C-alpha cells in the first residue's frame, strides 16, 4: 500500500464531510460568515490535497498509477465480501481535481451570490455534502460504494434544486429530478446484482479482472443497466427531462452540480467501466448512439428557448452527449478531456449568467435583456470567452476537446456519429451566439434599470474560469499530448492519442467552416436584422413550437406514465380501498361482534383466562406432536 496515497486520499474524501457536519451542528451557534468560511476552506483543503496527491501519482511509473487501497471489510456474509476501499488512478484524479477545484471556485462564488439568502448555512452544508458524495462516487473501489456516492449526489441535488422550498415549481422540479435519478439508481443496482450473480463480487479489481467469466451477453446486459444509471444521472435521452427543470435551483448549484460535476458522473461511470464496455460492443454502441442523439436533440431545443439558464441546461445535455459519444466509441481520453474543458467553460457560462441574473434582480428571460455589454463589461467578456469555447472556436479549449471527439469518431469508422456531431456543433455555435447576442448586443429591452453590483467574491472565480476556459485546451497541442499521457495509467490497453498532429485537418477545417457559418447566421439574425429573425420564426412555424416545448416529451411522459399511474391509483382507491382496506375491517368488525361474548370476553385481563390460554396452547401442541409427529418422530 502506497503510504502517501493511503494517508492523503481519505483526508480528501472526508474534508468536505467534516465541513458539512461542522456547519450543520456547530454553524447555527456561530456568525453566518463562519459557515461560508468552513464550507470554502474544507473544499479548498480537499483541492490542495488532491493536487499534492496528483503530483505524487503522476510521478509514479505509468504501470503503478492505479492504486487500490483496502481499509478493511465492511460486510462478509456468506460468499459476498464487500470492503472499504479507495481506488486512485488518473481517471479518478481528473474528476477529483475538477470536483474540488471547480467546486472550490463555485463555493467562493456562492459567498457573494447567496450573500442575502436567509438559509445561507443550509446552502453551504448541502454543497459540502454534495462534494463529499461526489468524491465518494469517483474514489470508490467498487460498485457498491460508488452507488452510495451516486445516491448521495442525487440527494444533494434534490436538496439544492428544492433550495427555494417556498416555491412550488422548485419543489416539483426537485421531486422530478429525484425520481428520474432513482430510476438510474435501480439500473445500477441491477447491474451490481448481475455482477454478483456471475462473479460474486462488486469490486472493480475483481469484476474487471474477470470480465472473461461473464460472457458477451451478460456483459452487454451489465453495460446496458449501467447505461440506464448513467443516462439518468447525466440527463441523456430518454431520462433528460429533469435537467431543464433543475434550473429552479440557485445558479451556483446549476454551475456545480448540473453542469460541471454531477451530470458528468455518467461519463465517469462508462469510462471507469471500460473493461466491460470494451468487451460489450452492443452496450458500447448504445452509449455512443444515446450520446449522439442527445447531443443533437438538446442542441435543436437550445435554439428556441428564452430562459438563459434553460438554454445553458440544454447545452449541458448536448455537450454531455458528446462525451457519451466519445466513451461509447472507445475514445475514453477524448471524453475525459471534453469533461475537463466543459467543466471550465460551462461553470464559467453559468456563473457569468449568474452575475447577469443577480444584477437584473432575478430576470432570466433573454427577451428582457440586451445591450448589457456596456452595463456589465465583466460579464460580457467572460461570457464571450465561454461562448467561444463551447462553440469550438480555436484557440479556446472547447475546440480542442470537441474536435478530438469528432476526429476520433471519423477515424474509428463512425461516419454517422461524426455527421451528427458536426450538425450538433453547428447548432451549438448558433444557439450559443444567439444567447450571447440576445443578452449583450443591441438595446436593453428590460423595464427595470439593472442595478450593477460588483462583488469580488463572484468575479474572481469567474475570471479564473475564463482563463482556464481559454487556455485549457493547450493540454493537447501538436506534438505535446499532455492529457493523454496523464491518463495513460487509467487506460493501459485502451489509450487513443489526441494529438493534433493526428487530426484529419480537412475534416477539422470543414467543421470550423460550418461553425463559422452558424455564428455568422446568429449574428445576422440577432444583431443585424430582426426582420430576418421574424421571417425565420414564421417559416419554422409548428417546428418552432415543437422545439419550444422540447418535443413535448414532458407531455408524452405525462400521458404514458402519470395518467395511467393516477388512473391505477384511482381504481385502487375505488375498488381496493373500498373493498379491501375498508371492507376487510368492516367484515372483521362484523365477525367480532358476531362472535360477541367469546371474542370480547376472552381478553378479560382475568388471570384464570390467561392460565386457560396457556393450558389450551400446551394441550394443542402436545396433541399436535403426539398424533401429528408420532410416525416421523419415532423413525
Amino acid at each position: 500500500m502506497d503510504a502517501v496515497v493511503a494517508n492523503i486520499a481519505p483526508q480528501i474524501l472526508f474534508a468536505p464531510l467534516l465541513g458539512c457536519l461542522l456547519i450543520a451542528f456547530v454553524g447555527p451557534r456561530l456568525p453566518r460568515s463562519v459557515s461560508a468560511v468552513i464550507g470554502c476552506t474544507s473544499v479548498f483543503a480537499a483541492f490542495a490535497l488532491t493536487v499534492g496527491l496528483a503530483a505524487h501519482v503522476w510521478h509514479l511509473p505509468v504501470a503503478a498509477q492505479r492504486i487500490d487501497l483496502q481499509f478493511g471489510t465492511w460486510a462478509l456474509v456468506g460468499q459476498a465480501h464487500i470492503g472499504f476501499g479507495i481506488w486512485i488512478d488518473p481517471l479518478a484524479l481528473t474528476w477529483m481535481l475538477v470536483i474540488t477545484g471547480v467546486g472550490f471556485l463555485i463555493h467562493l462564488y456562492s459567498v457573494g451570490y447567496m450573500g442575502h439568502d436567509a438559509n445561507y448555512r443550509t446552502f453551504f452544508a448541502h454543497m459540502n455534502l454534495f462534494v463529499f458524495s461526489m468524491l465518494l462516487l469517483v474514489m470508490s473501489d467498487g460498485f457498491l460504494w460508488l452507488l452510495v456516492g451516486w445516491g448521495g449526489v442525487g440527494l444533494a441535488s434534490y436538496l439544492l434544486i428544492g433550495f427555494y422550498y417556498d416555491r412550488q415549481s422548485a419543489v416539483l422540479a426537485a421531486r422530478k429530478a429525484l425520481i428520474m435519478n432513482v430510476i438510474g439508481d435501480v439500473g445500477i443496482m441491477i447491474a451490481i446484482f448481475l455482477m454478483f450473480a456471475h462473479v460474486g463480487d462488486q469490486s472493480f479489481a475483481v469484476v474487471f479482472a474477470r470480465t472473461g467469466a461473464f460472457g458477451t451477453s451478460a456483459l452487454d446486459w451489465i453495460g446496458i443497466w449501467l447505461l440506464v444509471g448513467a443516462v439518468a444521472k447525466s440527463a441523456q435521452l430518454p431520462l433528460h427531462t429533469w435537467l431543464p427543470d433543475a434550473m429552479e435551483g440557485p445558479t451556483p448549484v446549476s454551475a456545480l452540480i448540473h453542469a460541471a460535476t454531477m451530470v458528468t458522473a455518467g461519463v465517469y461511470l462508462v469510462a471507469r467501466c471500460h473493461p466491460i464496455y470494451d468487451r460489450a460492443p452492443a452496450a458500447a454502441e448504445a452509449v455512443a448512439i444515446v450520446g449522439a442523439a442527445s447531443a443533437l436533440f438538446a442542441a435543436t431545443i437550445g435554439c428556441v428557448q428564452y430562459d438563459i439558464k434553460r438554454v445553458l441546461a440544454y447545452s449541458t445535455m448536448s455537450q454531455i452527449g458528446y462525451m457519451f459519444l466519445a466513451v461509447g466509441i472507445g475514445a475514453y481520453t477524448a471524453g475525459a478531456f471534453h469533461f475537463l474543458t466543459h467543466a471550465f467553460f460551462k461553470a464559467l457560462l453559468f456563473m457569468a449568467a449568474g452575475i447577469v441574473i443577480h444584477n437584473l434582480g432575478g430576470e432570466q428571460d433573454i427577451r428582457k435583456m440586451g445591450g448589457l455589454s456596456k452595463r456589465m463589461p465583466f460579464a460580457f467578456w467572460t461570457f464571450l470567452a465561454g461562448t467561444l469555447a463551447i462553440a469550438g472556436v480555436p484557440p479556446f479549449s472547447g475546440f480542442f476537446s470537441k474536435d478530438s471527439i469528432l476526429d476520433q469518431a471519423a477515424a474509428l469508422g463512425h461516419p454517422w456519429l461524426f455527421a451528427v456531431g458536426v450538425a450538433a456543433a453547428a447548432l451549438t455555435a448558433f444557439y450559443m451566439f444567439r444567447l450571447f447576442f440576445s443578452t449583450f448586443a443591441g438595446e436593453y429591452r428590460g423595464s427595470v434599470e439593472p442595478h450593477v453590483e460588483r462583488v469580488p467574491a463572484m468575479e474572481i472565480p469567474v475570471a479564473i474560469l475564463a482563463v482556464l476556459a481559454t487556455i485549457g485546451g493547450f493540454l493537447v497541442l501538436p506534438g505535446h499530448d499532455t492529457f493523454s499521457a496523464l491518463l495513460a495509467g487509467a487506460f493501459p490497453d485502451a489509450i487513443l492519442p489526441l494529438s493534433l498532429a493526428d487530426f484529419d485537418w480537412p475534416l477539422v477545417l470543414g467543421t470550423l467552416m460550418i461553425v463559422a457559418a452558424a455564428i455568422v447566421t446568429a449574428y445576422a439574425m440577432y444583431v443585424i436584422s430582426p426582420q430576418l429573425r421574424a421571417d425565420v420564426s414564421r417559416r419554422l412555424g409548428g417546428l418552432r413550437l415543437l422545439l419550444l416545448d422540447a418535443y413535448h416529451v414532458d407531455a408524452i411522459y405525462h400521458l404514458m406514465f402519470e395518467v395511467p399511474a393516477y388512473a391505477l391509483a384511482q381504481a385502487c382507491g375505488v375498488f381496493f380501498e373500498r373493498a379491501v382496506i375498508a371492507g376487510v375491517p368492516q367484515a372483521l368488525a362484523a365477525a367480532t361482534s358476531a362472535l360477541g361474548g367469546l371474542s370480547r370476553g376472552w381478553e378479560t385481563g382475568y388471570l384464570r383466562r390467561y392460565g386457560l390460554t396457556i393450558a389450551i396452547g400446551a394441550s394443542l401442541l402436545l396433541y399436535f406432536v403426539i398424533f401429528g409427529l408420532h410416525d416421523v418422530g419415532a423413525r
Partner: protein
Amino acid sequence: MTQIAAPQIDFGVIAPLVALVATGLLILLVDLVSRRATRRMLYSIGIAGCIVSFVRVVMQFGHPATTFGGAFATDRFSWAFDAIILVALAASLLLSLVRDAEDGASPAAYSSLLVFCAVGGMIMAAATNLIVIFLGIEQLSLALYILAGTGLGRPASQEAALKYVLLGSLASGFLIYGSALLYGASGSVALTDIAHAAASPSMLFITGFTLFIVGVGFKLALAPFHVWTPDVYEGSPIAITAFMAVAVKAATFSVLARFVYVVFGHDVPALAPLWAIAILSMIVGNVGAIAQTNLKRLLAYSSIAQAGYVVLALAGVTGSGLSTMVFYLAAYAFMNLGAFAVIALVGDGSESVADIDSYRGMFWRRPWVAACMTVFMFSLAGIPATAGFIGKVLLLGQAIAAGPWGIAMAVVLVLGTLVSFYVYFKVVWAMFSPLEDGASAPAGNALVPWIAVAAGVAGVILMGVLPQLFYSFFAT
C-alpha cells in the same frame, strides 16, 4: 465409609458471576451499615459491579472452559449472552437512577434484586444440564416477580407482579415436568447425554421436549404463552420492563439455542412445535400491536413478534444460526433499551408519558428526542442503515435455506414486518405531526437516561452501518 466427592470448582470460570453476586451482597451490606447510603450510591455500586463482571467476561475471551463437572460452560456463546445481559443490567440500573423509579420500594432491595436477576440470566447462558438451567431460570424469575411489583404506588404494578408470579409458576411447572420426562427418556440431566436419546426419540422424549418448549416459550413470550406479556410489561416499572424485554429474553434464548444445538445438532421433526409457535408469535405480536395506544404495551406486543423472529435463527440448526441469533439479540437489545430509555427520559424515570398521544408533535419541541426515537422505531421496523435491518436480512437468509418450515417462517416474517411498519410508523408519524395548540412536550430531560439513549442510537447505527464489526466477533 462413604466419601462425598466435592466437585472441582474453577473460580476463574465463574468469576463474572462471583463479581455480580458480591456486588448484590455489597449493596445490601452498605445499606445495612450506612445510614447515609444514598440511592445514587447504591446504584453506582451496582453499575460498578456490572463493569467488573463485564471485564471478567472479556478476560475469558478465547479461553472456553467448563466447571462443576461440566454442568457450567463458558464459551463464545455464553460470553455473547453475558455481554447482552450485562449491558441490559447497566441500562436498567441507569434508568432506575432517575427519580422515583422504584416508587418507594427500598433502593437497596431493588438494585440488589436486579443484580441477582442478572446472575440468574448468566447462569442460564452457561448452563449445560437441565438442573442448572432450571436453577438459572428460577433465580432470574423469582427476583423478577418481586421487581415487577416494586411500583408500590401503582396498583397496575401489583397486578403485574401477581399475574407474573402465578402464571410464571404454571410455566415453571411445565418446564420441570418436561425436564423430568426428558430425564426419564434419557437417564441423565446433562444435555450431551440427552443428545443420545434424541437420536431415536421415544414418545416420552418428544412429550418432554414439547413441555420444555412450553415453559421456555412462556419466558420468551412466544404465542400462545404470551398472554401475560402486555399486562406485565405495562404494569412493571419502566426500568424493569426494559430489563425483562432484553435480558430475560436473551438469557432464555441462550438456553433454547444451547438445548437445540447440543441435543439435536441438526434439523429434526421434533422441532416443529417450536416453528409453529414462532409463526404464531409473529402474527399475534404484529397484529396485536396495531390497536395499542400505550407505548409500553406496544413494545410488549413488539417483543412477542421479535421473539418469533429470533426463533428463525435456529431454523435449520446450522452453524451460522448462532451468530445470527447473537447479532439479532444484540440489535434487539440496543433498539429496545433505547426505546425504553426514551420513555424513561421524557417521563423522568416513570411511565407517566407512555401514551402515543403524548408524543404528538414531539419533533417540533424536542427534535433530538424525536430523532432518537425515530431511529429506534426504524430499527424495530427493519429500515436499512439500522441494526434491525441487517438482523432481519441475516434471519431471512438463515430461514430460507432451511426447508419448508424455514420458508414458511420467512414468509410470515416478511408479512409481519409489513404489518409492523404501520405499528412503528404510527409512533414516528405522531412525533412529526403538527403540534396542537396549547399542548406542551413532556419535560423530562435528565442526563442519565440520555446516556442510555445515546448508547442505544450509537449501537443501532453502528450495527446497521458496520455490521461486520459485530458479526465477525461471533462468527470467526
